[in-house]
């Protein structure tokens, strides 16, 4: 057991820290968000050049073969800098899905331009009726002589507005809400019948609503095996959850630091407000919540390659903690800053927004708590069976 960073991990952390320091000053970030792309293609190019885009990919895909820990290190750095580059949508979700879904000999060809920062993919999974459930897929794909015809609607497709290609999850079998019978298709974003409405989220990210109206794609648009997309989907979403939790941990760390600095600087009644004991104790609670998020995120990150039951539990626990402890930290940061915490021109307000809204990506605390409850029920059933058997 050794929790210290390896040399490679330290290098990754340093790289991210440097890019953030060089390119993500508060004003610069505001500019990226306001731009047409919603992020900085130049910074994205830097990410590619420094190898950050290769981190989560397997060697056969031309990647860095990073595990959960490496992904965590990168995402924490992104969270610290409140980076709005489409790392989650384009790399972690779309990229990792392809890494898992494609045959080994095809990966490099498809993922190389992604790793180089050139290709722009997005994974279109969630639908309005399913809310956070990635297995509630009403989008249909029907086979015809020329290939497939897709119809349906996708919500909050991350990095979906800038994507050239969408990876669309459709149901070709099975019933909702099951992972069985899901298939994935390549859809050029310009294909007839595809409509997108892109938007900026309240926490500065970009996403799109996507409508598919009898979209015709070729037979080769099918990614992997028909009806078997569930595994790759889980692979990608699991990594997405780790990235989100780590990003939250990074953002929470800075929110705590900013608040602490403010408590030391800001004077009221002639003394720094940090000398008031009630505020001191609340600051301690904030830090304690940060530690809890860090700990469960670390555990989730390190369980990506392990036993499936444990992995699901760790991921769900981490995301629940991020949702609950994250919200507390964000609310306290605003409250302790007082009026300044409410201001769009204060960086802490943007940290708070990102931290709170992370709960709305890939499933909120409720969604994952339901999963934990289902696991507990399963556990108690197995225990009862074991008892009967004994």
């Amino acid at each position, binding site marked *: 057991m050794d929790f210290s960073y390896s040399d490679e991990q330290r290098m990754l952390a340093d790289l991210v820290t440097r890019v953030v320091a060089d390119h993500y000053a508060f004003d610069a970030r505001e500019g990226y968000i306001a731009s047409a792309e919603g992020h900085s293609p130049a910074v994205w190019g830097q990410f590619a050049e420094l190898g950050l885009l290769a981190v989560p990919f397997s060697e056969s895909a031309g990647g860095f073969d990073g595990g959960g820990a490496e992904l965590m290190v990168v995402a924490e750095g992104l969270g610290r800098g409140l980076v709005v580059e489409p790392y989650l949508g384009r790399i972690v979700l779309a990229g990792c899905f392809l890494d898992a879904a494609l045959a080994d000999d095809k990966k490099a060809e498809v993922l190389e331009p992604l790793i180089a920062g050139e290709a722009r993919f997005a994974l279109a999974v969630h639908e309005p009726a399913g809310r956070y459930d990635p297995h509630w897929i009403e989008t249909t794909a029907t086979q015809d002589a020329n290939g497939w015809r897709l119809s349906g609607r996708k919500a909050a497709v991350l990095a979906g507005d800038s994507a050239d290609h969408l990876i669309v999850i459709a149901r070709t079998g099975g019933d909702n809400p099951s992972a069985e019978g899901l298939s994935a298709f390549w859809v050029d974003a310009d294909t007839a019948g595809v409509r997108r*409405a892109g938007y900026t989220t309240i926490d500065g990210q970009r996403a799109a609503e996507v409508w598919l109206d009898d979209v015709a794609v070729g037979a080769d648009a099918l990614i992997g095996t028909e009806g078997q997309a569930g595994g790759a989907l889980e692979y990608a979403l699991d990594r997405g959850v780790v990235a989100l939790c780590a990003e939250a941990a990074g953002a929470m760390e800075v929110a705590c630091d900013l608040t602490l600095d403010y408590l030391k600087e*800001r004077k009221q009644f002639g003394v720094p407000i940090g000398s008031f004991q009630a505020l001191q104790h609340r600051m301690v609670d904030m830090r304690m919540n940060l530690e809890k998020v860090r700990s469960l995120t670390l555990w989730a990150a390190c369980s990506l390659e392990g036993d499936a039951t444990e992995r699901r539990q760790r991921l769900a626990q981490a995301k629940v903690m991020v949702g609950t402890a994250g919200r507390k930290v964000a609310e306290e940061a605003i409250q302790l800053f007082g009026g300044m915490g409410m201001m769009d021109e204060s960086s802490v307000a943007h940290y708070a927004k990102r931290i709170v809204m992370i709960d709305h990506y890939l499933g909120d605390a409720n969604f994952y708590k339901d999963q934990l409850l289902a696991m507990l029920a399963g556990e108690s059933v197995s225990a009862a069976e074991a008892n009967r058997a004994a």
Partner: protein
Amino acid sequence: MDIEYNKAERAFRDEVRAFIADNLPEETSRRVKAFKSVTPDMMTAWQGALSKKGWLAVNWPVEHGGTGWSPIEKHIFEEECAEAGAPRILPFGLNMVAPVIIKFGTQAQKDYYLPRILNNEDWWAQGYSEPGAGSDLAGLKCRAERDGDHYIVNGQKTWTTLGQHANMIFVLVRTNTEVKKQAGISFLLVDMDTPGVTVRPLITLDGEHEVNEVFFDDVRVPVDNLVGEEDKGWTCAKYLLTFERTGIAGVGISKAALAHLKEIAAGQIVDGKPLIEHPRLAERIVDLELELMAVEMTNLRTVSAAEAGGVPGAESSFLKIMGTEVRQKISDLYREIAGPQALPFSYLEDEPADCVADFAPPAAPTYFNLRKLSIFGGSNEIQKNIIAKAILGL
């Protein structure tokens, strides 16, 4: 002991309801209930209707055109308006500067300003907080120096709510730096069209333009605009701050909000059943309902005590904390109900309007905007300090 309204009180409530039904435009009400912003025109129209009826100056004595209502009547009126989705009556003229003018103003000030407030001719703003002072109000730095029959005002005020629409502002200024901080403050009325007054918008984290900074750069204010005595403005300031606020708990607003959210949750089908039937969400609603009812009854107990002649003092600090905590929790539930639909923000420019259900766009902005409730109007920490000192004797 009788916790129900008596016959006269019920009759009054019916009269208020009837008035609201006749005078509150449906579109205004719909927007207020749906957490959507209302235009200055909508606000002015509603205040105009109240003015015409003689119901605008709820807290004024009858001789100045006020309603002369009892605490229970005021409470009924405020809660009915809130539950019906009426825009809030802007307090800066009616419930802040007016009571100060009535109590400390000259006859000329009363004769000029009070009718204008009653007739919605002036839009008042508040010039209390300063960037450096925050909760330490008396530490203010904005200064006024006498120059003949004018004061020359220099300095800055902040958190001036809706100041972008105002033509008048009341300002606390320092007129004496030789004495201890509370003793050198004066209360001035300033026409915002005077040269040297600049309003700069402050955008809040939800993207709203609701508050402002106001800069004073050699602004000449006639000495006639001084309320009360020079250097005695702290008395006015304190009087204004402790002025009876029965509505501080915001129970009516919370009730309307929770009813709205229940409707939304009943209408959203998720995983094949209405969201309101999902157990954890249902439990949050049940929790909030009972929390809100506790606040409502605590509020009623205070109103009843006021009716019996008690003077609500630090008790209003309890109500402020309890009431704002519930309102914030309701806004958090709103965000939770909206789920992934809470993400789009550029709706403010009406861009991806068809991405999400109509109820969803205000969810996250409302949640973030209402963080202000525990910060402004005397932060909840300050309220706790007040209770600790005034009620608990600590």
